[in-house]
């Protein structure tokens, strides 16, 4: 058995395996920490900073920071919620996100986080950048208007598919998702069955001709708003474990 350490998050005492990240340890105990660039199965990079928490008072990205014994973590505070809101708002104004007709709507992590964080409209001016759509691949479309530069496609393609289809060029506000080809996505070795095709948290990389197949009301985040699955499952486990707690009741989150 691996060594366990204990720590607190928002005053709640949790245990973690040594070396486990704060994000993973929290999630295992039913505490959801919002994130965009991190995805289970990928090496964390701490790029988007949405998972920023305070560790003993110091800001750190929960997806990269390992738990150490006795640390005090702040997660769901007004200050951190405000920071996360601002990051997500900046992502909205930096790209061209039209949720109202985007086929990823209802299945989009960016949109779902905006709802969770209570964003009704961004406070920053829209930049309306000019970005292109690469539809050259017969089965996959790359719409850079919606890319949030999380790098999940790049890491998935490299680390899980072993292909290196994607990469980044330029820096700062000019940073752009590029493809490993002379010209376009259609010239790469990307296959419909590659895991990279399903790695995108937003509607930037999509399978063609599959849009809107799921009715409104039954889409991923219609059924379960982002983060609530983590919280609900934990709540049910605790209930079931409590003396006299009875059987878990589906959907009865506390």
């Amino acid at each position: 058995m691996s060594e366990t350490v204990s720590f607190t998050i928002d005053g709640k005492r949790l245990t973690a395996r040594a070396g486990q990240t704060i994000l993973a340890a929290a999630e295992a105990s039913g505490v959801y920490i919002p994130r965009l660039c991190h995805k289970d199965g990928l090496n964390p990079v701490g790029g988007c900073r949405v998972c920023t928490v305070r560790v003993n008072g110091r800001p750190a990205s929960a997806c990269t920071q390992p738990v150490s014994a006795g640390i005090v973590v702040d997660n769901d505070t007004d200050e951190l919620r405000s920071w996360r809101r601002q990051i997500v708002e900046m992502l909205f104004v930096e790209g061209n996100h039209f949720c109202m007709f985007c086929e990823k709507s209802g299945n989009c992590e960016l949109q779902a986080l905006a709802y969770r964080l209570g964003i009704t409209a961004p406070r920053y001016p829209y930049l309306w950048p000019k970005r292109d759509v690469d539809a050259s691949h017969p089965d996959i479309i790359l719409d850079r208007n919606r890319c949030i530069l999380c790098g999940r496609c790049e890491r998935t393609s490299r680390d899980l598919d072993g292909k290196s289809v994607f990469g980044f060029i330029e820096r700062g506000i000019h940073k752009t998702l590029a493809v490993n080809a002379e010209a376009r996505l259609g010239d790469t070795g990307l296959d419909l069955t590659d895991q990279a095709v399903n790695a995108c948290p937003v509607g930037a990389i999509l399978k063609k001709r599959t849009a809107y197949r799921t009715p409104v009301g039954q889409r991923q985040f219609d059924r379960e708003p982002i983060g609530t699955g983590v919280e609900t499952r934990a709540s049910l486990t605790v209930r079931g474990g409590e003396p006299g707690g009875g059987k878990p009741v589906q959907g009865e989150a506390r």
Partner: protein
Amino acid sequence: MVTHSNTRRIEISPVTRVEGHGKVTIHLDEANRVTEARLHIVEFRGFERFIQGRPYWEMPVAVQRLCGICPVSHHLCAAKAIDHIVGGAKLTPTAEKMRRLMHYGQMFQSHCLHFFHLASPDLLFGFDSDPATRNVIGIIGADRDLAYQAIMMRKYGQEIIKATAGKKIHGTGAIPGGINKNLSIAERDALLVDVEKMKKWSRDAVELARKYTLTNMELVKTFASHESNYLSIIRRDGAMDFYDGGLRAIDAGGGTIFDHVPNPEYLGVIREGVRNWSYMKVPFIRSLGEERGWYRVGPLARVNTCDFIDTPEAEAARKDFKALTNGRPNHMTMAFHWARMIEVLHSIEMIERLLGDPDLQGTDLVVTGERAREGVGVIEAPRGTLFHHYRVGDDDLVTMCNLIVSTTSNNEGMNRSVRRVAEDCISGQPTITEGMLNRIEVAIRAYDPCLSCATHALGKMPLIAEIMGPDGNLIDRKVREP
């Protein structure tokens, strides 16, 4: 403001209790005679351009954002066009009936909104009544039951849209080659609960519009009226059909100009002209030319063009309507309202018929076949015939889009109505009253215009009338806060 040295100009801007944003200008000479009267559509939308470069499957969901009142029309019309792109124009019975149910639901709610909420204050209170109460709030005060019915009828239509498209406004039900859901038993049963009540209220609505027309026949016969050609789609057997059919056009005497023209051949029979004073084009029937080829669409056009209506109560109402003009086309602009209510009755009868059809619970939802590069969809929107035409590249991105929305087809007809009212009610009058200006708006409202194919906050737009002297000075300005 003044463009002619010896005339003055009245401007009604924006026109109220319509959907969208327009203004009317009336030019008067020194004896207050009308020299010109025009309806201008002052919004510019640009949808045809900015959806270029987007994938074709986005069209039904993206282009419906043109409108918040009848988005289902654009949703379904785009879907019908895109069906051809994916080789899925022959839908499964479940898909077609779900789409039809959605469409009748929207026809029902949109017509109710327009007749009760927007137009009825003029009919019930009179054109010259106090503008402070000549609105839907006034209706609530004067006839609580009628106002309640209006709201509940609109709600019923919206619930049908939600059950078929997932949302009451801007849903996603229709997808290329089909539909993304069927109607569950629970959804069906919930809708069946109120269907009888809706039928009764629809009958009452037909009677209300009929009674108004017959009691005010002297006014209705001439008010804003003029002869015109009419256009709609029509079922193979000549029945009224809102969802599918070839194009039929008739002339003012009821003679056929063309019939059962397949949708993809619309450019062979229709052309679009332009005017230098409006963003809205002026379509015309090609064989008649731009001068004589303009036509009207919408409820009046559909009741005029069809041979019959395929539901018993609406068909009886249609016969009653046709008897007024001895079976010939009815050109009375105010009769749009009566025709509209006949369509409300037809819609609820169709809704009832469809809800009883087990095909709606089918599971075969989508068909696809041979990929095409071009697709045309034509549908009858509440305001009239709507055309969507797309070309798509091999990479699935849209390269060309052409939309002819219903109100565009009614452009010339509405302008003639505005001119007629200006000449009949304003020309030569010593003073211009608010009621006279309202008559202009009454004429526009009869068409059920969707001026920009966009919704606006109801009741927030003031009416501004400016009267300019011959020297260009403002001599009178009236602002009416609705």
